[in-house]
């Protein structure tokens, strides 16, 4: 059994064997866990404060990847990040998916559990993408109730992440940060603030990223994500696509520094999910985040 004390929110520190993590908040930079790095992590035990795994990548009943995750978990704190629960969908909540997640949570005792402010299925068909919701009263009530159901099923709070989007719905009534704030109030969830997604949306939809930071309650923000995006053009206009395939952009680092000022240091994840580089590249990005957090009282990995 893994120690239950590892569940302390905000407490993400390296573990040694079965020794529970130090008490108190220790925000530091972690790395998105990819299967191609499993063996290296286990062989080398690199100095990484924590790892975050995509829940769905470990939904299989058994096999080497699951066994490796268990091994990694015995040496590092872990966060489980879902991409497929389709929380915003108007289909019934997928109870099989939720049961699978529950099984992972029971087995791996993640420090944090997160999902997205999005939907990915309708009529039983899945697009397996993070699709935007309209920011309306109806969507708010729906998403808050669904998050409540998930939290009830898991018996603990989850974090909800803001997504990148490439369109806005006509019926949208309020801003994304107003929607998120209301969602926190209605459901009791926390916020996983993806700084890259925030930047991408501020550019794609023309709003002030600092107004967004200003509109979010610091107490609700429990984790940051940092990732790379791609600038492209559609119809002669710039549009930024959240690709997770490259380095964190300098504008996003700048916004991250501002977020640290607004919210204080928080566990910060380096995400890189396509054209995945060597682990050392991810460690260097994480070290950058640690250095930026230091003046705010964080303890680097």
């Amino acid at each position, binding site marked *: 059994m893994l120690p239950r004390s590892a569940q302390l929110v905000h407490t993400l520190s390296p573990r040694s064997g079965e020794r529970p993590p130090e008490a108190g908040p220790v925000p530091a930079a972690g790395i998105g866990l990819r299967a191609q790095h499993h063996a290296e992590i286990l062989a080398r035990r690199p100095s990484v404060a924590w790892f975050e795994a995509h829940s769905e990548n470990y939904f299989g009943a058994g096999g*080497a990847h699951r066994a490796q995750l268990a091994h990694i978990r015995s040496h590092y704190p872990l966060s489980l990040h879902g991409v497929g629960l389709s929380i915003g969908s108007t289909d019934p909540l997928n109870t099989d998916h939720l049961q699978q997640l529950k099984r992972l949570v029971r087995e791996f005792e993640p420090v944090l559990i997160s999902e997205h402010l999005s939907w990915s299925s309708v009529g039983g068909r899945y697009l397996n993408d993070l*699709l935007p919701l309209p920011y309306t009263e109806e969507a708010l009530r729906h998403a808050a109730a669904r998050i409540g159901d998930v939290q009830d099923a898991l018996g603990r709070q989850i974090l909800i992440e803001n997504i990148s989007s490439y*369109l806005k719905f006509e*019926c949208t009534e309020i801003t994304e940060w107003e929607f998120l704030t209301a969602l926190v109030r209605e459901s009791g969830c926390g916020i996983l603030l993806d700084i890259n997604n925030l930047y991408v949306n501020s550019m794609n*939809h023309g709003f002030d990223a600092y107004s967004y930071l200003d509109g979010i309650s610091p107490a609700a923000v429990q984790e940051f994500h940092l990732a790379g995006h791609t600038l492209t053009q559609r119809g002669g206009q710039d549009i930024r696509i959240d690709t997770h395939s490259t380095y964190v952009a300098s504008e996003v680092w700048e916004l991250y520094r501002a977020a640290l000022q607004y919210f204080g240091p928080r566990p910060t994840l380096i995400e890189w999910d396509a054209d995945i580089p060597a682990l050392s590249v991810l460690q260097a990005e994480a070290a950058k985040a640690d250095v930026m957090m230091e003046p705010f009282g964080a303890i680097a990995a």
Partner: protein
Amino acid sequence: MLSLPELQARFAATMFGDTTEASTPWIQVAGIAPELRLEIYRNNLQEGFTRTLALEFPVIQRLVGADYFRQLAVSFLADHPSRSGDLHHIGAPFAAFLRGQFAGTTYQYFADVAALEWAWQECLVAEDDAAVDLNALQAVPPQDYARLQFALRKAVHLLESAFPIMRIWEANQPGTSATEIIELDSGAEFVLVHRVAGGARVTRLSPGEFALLATLARAEPLEAALDAALACEPYFDLIDALRRSFELGIFARMSFPS
């Protein structure tokens, strides 16, 4: 104003191509035409689906080439969209889809190769049930062998094909240069996909071994399995075949019918 269910249904309909409705007044224009905005999501859907399918069926992709594989994946997506938040499952109906696509053509072997690749994928994530070893069999009195039933481990898959699917599979693994000419009519192959430490393995079986294991997999007793093996291999060596099966860790448990 569209309700949330209506809005999601319309969005999905444009993604899956159910509708030819060009008008999308429910999306803000804001400098970029809604159709171009939707195109980003349609591209994500098709690329994500194709990428996952290619990871699950690398040999099929190598056989048909990346461009044609993408076309196949997009038409497969239209017939068999993902039904789960976990993309892994999309590959389950791919072999049957290929069987339909290439029935009666020289490419009908694609379906059997795809079935082998899917068995490999399923083997990788199957439940970690332990193998019983040969000592357990030695504890059984010989007069009871005939009634003995064997449960195969969850990771074990048995495949038979009229085509040399294992040779095709081997010749198209990463790092191999596929210069070998494989005659499609060179005879049937019987293949076992099973768990080894750290992953999966493909092992060629004799027709008798396949008949033995396939019969055991249907929960029939050893006597019936031996009959099936002898029917295709008159000189079938049961002791040898069982020893090999135990060495490969195929069985999860042995029992007698209740």
